[in-house]
């Protein structure tokens, strides 16, 4: 190359992505109850006999309006599935390795995805009994629950 690669260099930069997420009326009620009362709310469809979390405005089966059918769920539940995150990239909620689990709370029919802290990641098991640990500081998002940990029942 006659020009010579000596002229080439690398510009270190950052790319900014501004975004705005609106939780909606239903999502806001859910997060405010987590933050202010440490209560985990789901919504219930009596007709289908199902309790959903995260809460939703309409039943996914019969499309009934569930806006006011709030029910409080237990902060305990069991692991129905999990994955171990082993790669690191910006904007993960924790430093890998960590466990993301599907947790079916007592009283709910659908699982909630959240972080599971069980010491070594190899300790995670399907069927494990777990309990929600709430954040010390207001977060205004799902990290109002900091993580789940073994319930030690």
């Amino acid at each position, binding site marked *: 190359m006659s*020009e*010579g690669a000596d002229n080439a260099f690398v510009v270190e930069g950052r*790319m*900014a*992505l*501004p*975004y*705005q997420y609106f*939780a909606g*009326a239903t999502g806001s009620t859910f997060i405010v109850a987590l933050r202010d009362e440490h209560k985990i709310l789901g919504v219930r469809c009596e007709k289908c006999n199902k309790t959903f979390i995260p809460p939703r405005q309409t039943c996914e089966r019969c499309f009934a309006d569930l806006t006011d059918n709030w029910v409080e769920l237990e902060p305990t539940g069991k692991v129905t599935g999990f994955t171990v995150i082993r790669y690191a990239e910006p904007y993960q909620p924790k430093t890998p390795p960590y466990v993301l689990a599907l947790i079916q709370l007592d009283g709910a029919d659908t699982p909630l995805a959240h972080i599971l802290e069980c010491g070594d990641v190899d300790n995670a098991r399907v069927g494990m009994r777990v309990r929600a640990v709430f954040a010390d500081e207001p977060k205004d998002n799902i990290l109002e629950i900091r993580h789940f940990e073994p319930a030690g029942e």
Partner: protein
Amino acid sequence: MREKDSDQELIVSRQVLSIPQRFATGPAMGRFLRELRDNKRIMANKCPKCGRHQLPPREVCAVCRVEATEWEELGPEGTVRDFDVVYYASPDPLTGDTRETPYVACWADLDGTQGAAPLWHLLDAPDLSQVRSGLRVRVVFAEERTGRIEDIQHFEIIE
């Protein structure tokens, strides 16, 4: 839709993600950015066959497909060909910040150019009604230069 309690607290999350990225200049852009940073010069490369300038430079003449190895300094003065007065600024992809509006961006043909695309940059125009095509402008370099196009701070109007 059901009518909701109007004093319900609604959760909105606003964030700016800032993602690290690396840009490899290659030889031609490397020379261009290096000259901005170290010598406050705007360098275009020139096609040995058709004599056309390329700004920003590229390795090969886009018309003749031959390697463009000669370099010449253009500007720093030039003539506005076209401009935009911007009243709604979208966020800067590098910072997430939004410029104060209104602002002016222009495309200026730098003095000495032969066939190069006009250089786009901000135009510092205290009086918007002054801005027109044909306006004479000069490049103002940033105090701190790091080898990016922002090493040119803006164009200023020559009185």
